């Protein structure tokens, strides 16, 4: 089965629409959403509604820290993220807020684990920025492959049977077979706010038969997404960063 895996959509309608179209055109049979549907972007209602629709159709969705912050005011965030979350809270309907509040932190399916941040303590929202961060997550789960987001920069880590780590920045369009002899942590790039200096929306496809992961980049109308952010009075940097991918 071909999975399409999306992380850090961040209420960016233009980017998520482009990724969904791209994934469907390439035969995606199942959608996996790794959290942070809201925050930063200006279309949270649409984003949550879309994810709810996908879940109705059999998609998997887990909770991100921004989704969590909508319900839990104690979540610590930077000023811009905080401003966006407060604005978002007022936009979402009660059923939408309930949907976010009821999402699981992690979900395992066959030998795959889906989690927003990492597996060792999903509710603490640790970032995976290095091979040792990745190792901490890999040893905390029995899953063979963990898919996560949160960092907004794609990366692929593996651990050998001798607990040696490899780290790698995946190249979009080049499929990598996740060999059965080692354990893997695939960090997805961000759909709605890429930060690796490539403004194109980032997601990945995974084929459960061939065990190949392909990271994909999808160009979208960043200017339209930025205009929505400005028009809604959100912090300007949240609009400006979309065109530079930072």
């Amino acid at each position, binding site marked *: 089965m071909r999975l399409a895996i999306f992380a850090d959509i961040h209420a960016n309608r233009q980017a998520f629409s482009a990724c969904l179209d791209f994934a469907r055109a390439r035969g995606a049979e199942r959608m996996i959403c790794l959290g942070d549907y809201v925050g930063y972007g200006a279309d949270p209602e649409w984003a949550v509604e879309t994810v709810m629709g996908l879940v109705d159709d059999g998609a998997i969705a887990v909770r991100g820290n921004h989704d969590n912050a909508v319900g839990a005011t104690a979540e610590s965030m930077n000023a811009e993220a905080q401003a966006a979350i407060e604005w978002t809270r007022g936009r979402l309907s009660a059923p939408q807020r309930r949907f976010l509040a009821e999402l699981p932190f992690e979900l395992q399916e066959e030998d795959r684990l889906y989690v927003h941040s990492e597996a060792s303590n999903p509710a603490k929202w640790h970032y995976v920025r290095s091979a040792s961060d990745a190792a901490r997550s890999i040893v905390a789960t029995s899953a063979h492959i963990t898919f996560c987001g949160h960092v907004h920069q794609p990366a692929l880590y593996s651990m*050998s049977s001798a607990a040696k780590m490899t780290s790698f920045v995946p190249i979009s369009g*080049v499929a990598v077979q996740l060999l*059965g002899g080692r354990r893997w942590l695939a960090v997805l790039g961000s759909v709605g706010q890429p930060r690796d200096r490539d403004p194109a929306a980032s997601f990945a496809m995974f084929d459960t038969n061939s065990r190949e992961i392909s990271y994909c980049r999808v160009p979208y109308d960043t200017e339209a997404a930025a205009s929505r952010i400005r028009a809604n009075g959100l912090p300007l940097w949240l609009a400006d960063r979309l065109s530079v991918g930072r």
Partner: protein
Amino acid sequence: MARTSVKTSVVSGAVIDGFTIGECVHHGGMATLWSVTHPGIAMPLLMKIPRVSEGEDPAAIVSFEMEQMILPRLSGPHVPACFGTGDFAAQPYVVIERIPGKTLYSRLGDLPLSFEEASGIVGKIAPALADLHRQNVIHHDIKPSSIMFRPSGEVVLIDFGLSHHNQLPDLLQEEFRLPYGTAPYMAPERLLGVRDDPRSDLFSLGVLLYFFTTGVRPFGESETMRGMRRRLWRDPHPPRKLKADYPPWLQEVVLRCLEIEPVWRYPAASQLAFDLGNPDQIKLTARSERVKRDPISTVWRRRFNDGLTQPKPKADLAAQLAACPILAVALDTAEGSEPLNEALRVTAQRILATLPSARLACLNVLKLGRVTLDRTLDEQGNNKHIDRLVTLKHWASPLRLDENRLTVHVLEAIDPAAAILEFAEVNHVDHIVIGARQNSLVRTLLGSVSAKVAAEAPCTVTVVRPPRAASLHEQDANVKKSDEVRA
């Protein structure tokens, strides 16, 4: 995922994923090789099975995983075709085409080979390496036992267990504290942990060429880290010290491959192949004449100057190769070609300006008649071939290229386009720049050389035209205007 529990239960007659196991043909330290058959595949096949039981070298597993990732992605005549892989989850294996014959290792008893034979062999390995590098893979274990030949004579590279794929995770990246490979052939930068420089393979090929022509390994056989590290500062004895009759051009090639700093080696395998295919065109430098190693002061400077031996940041293999193409410019020396040749020079200059490692081959075709018996001397007794070479060099002189970046070639042929295409094919030219006339009666009658080259070349072709003269239409308009003035 307890892989150590996977036992190699392979026996003759067993069937794995449709492959029927035949006899065991090799029992090595890292893997066993079995002949296998498959009802849908006519070609002879080999199944490679890693040794993964308890107590085996962990390198066997990682090397196998690397081959499992890389082999299915490779294609072309210079690698064995891959027909299937099995994962550690069940029975790990790869099935590849069985290349008949022996590896180059079987020739070790015949060393030293003649200069012609050895350079001929390396001249066939270099294009195979270029093709591998083009596919984003650095072999990292080039040595006689990794090299085989197809019946057609083409080199096949085998054993990718230590290889690096520039677009895939490098599983050997942090696996071993010591660099893994074959000590006598290992490039110095490998000792510093560099795994993404294709010029490491050129160093290994230089070791092979040195060994095959002299019978002596340039860095000995030491397997200790201390012994291997010496090559970071100590250069080998020049081959001419061992053999006084060693051809200077061949020493030039060998010592360039064995340069300690990768940047002083050939920038790409295709350029090494080019030199071995055109030995009379090799620019001889001080390297070619040396009979002594570098003075001790140079060696000490290398040894205690860390700057020289620091690893560089990770490189993009494709970008690195794209920066050192072989460019061929086809020139016409006929009367009236000056504007076109000037335009060709401007284009060549622009391309070369952006690619400091590119090399330029200037071509001219000395057309032979189909019927008449051609004579090398013209009516005045001048040698036409030499005249053309002089003309080509003269054309190139304003480009001010280092001599090792420039070669000139006069091709004698009946069909100029075919000659240019053949040159491009044989020498792995990356980009042909060729002129086309604006309005040529010859073109209308005989078909255009540039059109044929552009249509059939295996590489990029730029067709250059001289600056546009006023068109017929504009001339007509001018005539009309002057008529009007007259009226």
